[in-house]
């Protein structure tokens, strides 16, 4: 199968909406099929990649940290970067710089870059498919 490129814009902050996991599943599927993916994280979505995210145990369920295997979005996204590397394709992840500044969300995992709306438009022009997932 020939490699294509998908550009995707996302807006939701982690742990607030089904949209975040859906977006990451879509990115995973594209990468898994050998396609390059450009992500533009706008507004709350810049928090998806914050390095300080930490899993927790669940006292209500009585599970330990290890038993709970609590997800963090930054770990899911790190795994997507690793998948792209293994498949020798590109996952280009840009966090909107102004959105980062107003949220103090500048400490992020490896692979993420700072950018702006113009970067999203540049990636759209080079893409075979574009998807915008808004927040509400």
């Amino acid at each position, binding site marked *: 199968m020939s490699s294509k490129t998908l550009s995707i814009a996302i*807006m939701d902050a982690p742990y607030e909406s089904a949209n975040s996991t859906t977006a990451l599943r879509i990115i995973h599927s594209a990468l898994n099929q050998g396609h390059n993916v450009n992500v533009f994280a*706008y507004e709350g979505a810049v928090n998806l990649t914050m390095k300080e995210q930490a899993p927790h145990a669940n006292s209500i369920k009585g599970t330990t940290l290890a038993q709970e295997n609590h997800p963090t979005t930054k770990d899911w996204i790190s795994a997507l970067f690793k998948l792209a590397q293994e498949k020798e394709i590109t996952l280009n992840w840009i966090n909107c710089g102004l959105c980062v500044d107003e949220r103090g969300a500048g400490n992020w995992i490896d692979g993420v870059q700072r950018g702006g*709306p113009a970067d999203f438009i540049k990636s*759209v*022009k080079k893409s075979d498919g*574009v998807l*915008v997932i*808004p*927040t509400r």
Partner: protein
Amino acid sequence: MKVLNIVETAYRATLEEQDDTILWLSQSFQDAGVDISILLRGNAVNYLVKEQKPFNLHFGTWKQTQPPELDRDLEIMIDKDISVYAVAEDIQERALLQERLIDGVSLIEKSQVAQLFEQFEYVWHW
């Protein structure tokens, strides 16, 4: 590159952002060379109402200035040759009076929305 940005959700964090983030983004897209148009549908048609005056927002001694002025933002966008469309039925359902709306907006019926999509290379529903 012709893009139609559809705005439906209204007043989402506009007091914190001092903007509607999609109207702001749309102007950034224009600056990046996109031929951008806006379709207001659902509650976002309320952005057309003139003289939206957010109340005096303050917290303790912090007085917030520079409130969002969404009607003004749209007027500025229209002045910058951004076409703004709005769904007529959504305006009627919300009892918005024509004389209270900003000028320069193209009203379309719900049944014309699909046809409008045809004019654009990309249609993004925010």
